[in-house]
């Protein structure tokens, strides 16, 4: 029984010591987390909260923001340009991203099989990615010029009447996709690394089972490179939702280039008016930053949902394989 009083005393001492230690540990953790917390606050939390606040205001970028409640959100239901922006961005997301991924994967597969010159091919396919986006877009404007561009000149030499490319609303997005596909060097390189990393024994086992090339691709290569494919798909989807630079450069260079208005954005016939282009127009050309903030929040929510759905699907895909 003499030991009994000691237990609570010991317990109290231990708990005090533990509290002291945890306090010390916590400050250390806070110190270590401080740079991240600062970056998170300045570059993510503050802009996000500011966006939420601005979405409830009328703000022309110059005078103080005025609270107007949910009127900016209500305008979403009446904004016809919004539908155009959503349609164009959906095209890039649902058609552009798969085409880019398949193309990059196909090129990576071809290079992985090359017996000679693989290094040269890798360099050749990767180089366009190093080109500044603006320069690449301008180069494609020249290449795809319907009258004097080398592409249509080549096509006409074999009797094909080339399209108007960027100047035709039906061809403007496919032309942008050609530009994007030309610049898939970054995706190609990570696909190539993943493909080369697949254990050779798996292919040998598949050979013994009599699997053909397609079966080996489906049952060996794809499952092995799945994490890389998921990463590429998610980043490409987010890029597609933020699609801006190419569309901006091509539209402004084709419709005069020196205009100070915003009418050229989306040229031709609003076929390149992607969601971020619309957001830019609203915020910085129409001085309607409150509504632009609504669009930005919408874009954030959609990007988050798309990434979430893709990751969920990818995990199901993994369990099915």
């Amino acid at each position, binding site marked *: 029984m003499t030991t009994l009083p000691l237990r609570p005393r010991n317990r109290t001492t231990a708990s005090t010591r533990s509290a002291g230690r945890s*306090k010390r540990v*916590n400050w250390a*953790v*806070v110190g270590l*987390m401080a740079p991240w*917390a600062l970056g998170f*606050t300045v570059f993510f*939390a*503050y802009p996000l*909260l*500011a966006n*939420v*606040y*601005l979405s409830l*205001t*009328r*703000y*022309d*970028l*110059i*005078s*103080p*923001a*005025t609270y*107007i409640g949910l*009127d900016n959100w209500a*305008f979403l239901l*009446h*904004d*016809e340009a919004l539908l155009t922006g959503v349609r164009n961005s959906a095209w890039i997301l649902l058609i552009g991203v798969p085409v880019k991924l398949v193309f990059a994967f196909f090129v990576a597969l071809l290079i992985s099989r090359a017996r000679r010159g693989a290094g040269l091919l890798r360099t050749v396919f990767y180089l366009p990615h190093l080109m500044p986006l603006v320069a690449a877009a301008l180069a494609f404007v020249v290449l795809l*010029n*319907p*009258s*004097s561009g080398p592409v249509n000149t080549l096509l006409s030499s074999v009797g094909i009447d080339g399209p*108007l*490319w960027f*100047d035709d*609303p039906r061809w403007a997005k496919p032309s942008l996709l050609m530009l994007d596909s030309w610049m898939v060097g970054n995706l190609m390189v990570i696909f190539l690394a993943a493909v080369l990393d697949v254990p050779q024994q798996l292919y040998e086992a598949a050979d013994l089972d009599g699997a053909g090339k397609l079966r080996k691709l489906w049952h060996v290569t794809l499952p092995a490179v799945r994490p890389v494919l998921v990463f590429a798909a998610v980043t490409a989807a987010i890029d597609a939702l933020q699609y801006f630079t190419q569309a901006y450069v091509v539209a402004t*260079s*084709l419709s*005069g*280039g*020196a205009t*100070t*208005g*915003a*009418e*050229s*954005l*989306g*040229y*031709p*016939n*609003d076929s390149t008016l992607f969601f971020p282009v619309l957001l830019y127009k609203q915020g*910085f*050309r*129409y*001085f*309607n930053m409150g*509504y632009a903030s609504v669009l930005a929040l919408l874009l954030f929510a959609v990007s988050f949902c798309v990434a979430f759905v893709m990751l969920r699907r990818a995990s199901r895909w993994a369990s099915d394989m």
Partner: protein
Amino acid sequence: MRPPHNLLRRLLLPVLLCCALLTGCGVAAPDVPLDQPGREPVTITVWSAYSGRELDVFNEVLRRFEQDHPWITVRSVGSQNNDRMVAALRGGPAPDVQWAPQSDLAGVYCPSGGWRDLSHYIERDGLDPGVFVPAAWKATSAGGKRCALPVLGDIYGLYYNKKKLAEAGFTEPPRTMSQLDAYARKLTRRDGQGDIRVAGYAPLTLFYANRPAYEAQLWGAEWFRKDGDSAVSTDPDWRRLLAWRKKLIDWYGYDKLRAFTAGAGAQYSASNAFQTGQLAMMLDGEFRTAFVENEAKELDYGTAPFPAPDDHPQQYGAGAWTVHLAGVTHRSAHPDAAWRLVKWLATSPKAQVALAEGLHNVPTTKAALRSPKLAAIPHFKPFLDMAADPHSKVPPSTPAGVSYQDSMAAFFQQWESGEVQDAGKGLAEQARKIDSFLDQVTIGMERR
């Protein structure tokens, strides 16, 4: 690990909420006296979009201002675009004077208070608005505030290739829209496959200077009614404008004309289709004369007012304005000196003529428009006459910038391509769209 969460709750969240609430708060204007009775030396800064040779011309004129106002030193900063100008009104280093090459911006700078209301100075100095051409003066106010003075402008008229017109048997440029149509057809040359090699006149929207903003002025079409609502569905001139364009575009063949414009050289380059002779007539501003002088000396061309609508012959002689504005920023620490510079640039004959001559732009005072020095510049006289014409107009300013013009530019393209078939229905939709958007942008403000 609870304490860090508590810390987050106690410190971080209030900080974030404060940040969010602070966002969008404008930067307060310095509390400075509006008038400076003495002649204490001051230095003011002026921002403009000019660069290279044009900035040299501008700076040379500023030196003359300094000679006339020895107590004021002017620091000139060029290459400032609209985005930078707006950002400067919000925070960071702010100039005392901003020079904007777009009259549309008055709709933003005046009501927002980004540029100071100049009424006090105009009244104090007894500035007579009658010294300016009416369109230019009209462009300087919005939202009940006059925050700028007109300092120069661009006016759009017809450029025509004299040699090609003569070859087709024309001795004079067209004076009506039906003549323009007839001239365009006769001047057009196609190859064996029907592709356009030389276009008489290429009316596609967004090709070179073809913008609803200018064409509405040339057709006399009104953007807004007196009550502030869009007039695009009620003013019959819009339908006439659309019908005229469609008829000519269909004659060319939309795809053929689109192929021609897509292959034409860039607007601001030596390969501009008018300068290379591929385009016989076009709409453009007075500044093109300088491009031709530098890049296509051999071109035998003429300039004239743009043809008038057949049912508005009195319109002939008018041009379409874009006015350059100068204003005193609300953050200026020396508003009196800044005003003196703005007033001098806008009203001094030597400033107006020197700027117009050096930059190949039209002046905005009636006196400078009569300058023999400017009239002597080859091909420039018709633009001076257009600028002085009482029918010449400037597009209206709105708090939503040029959104109403963009909306119509997109509609024009749909109409020209055949995507929209019913002009009346399309215009009604545009009117609703323009009104709805302006209502949204001006919630809580007086628009009408």
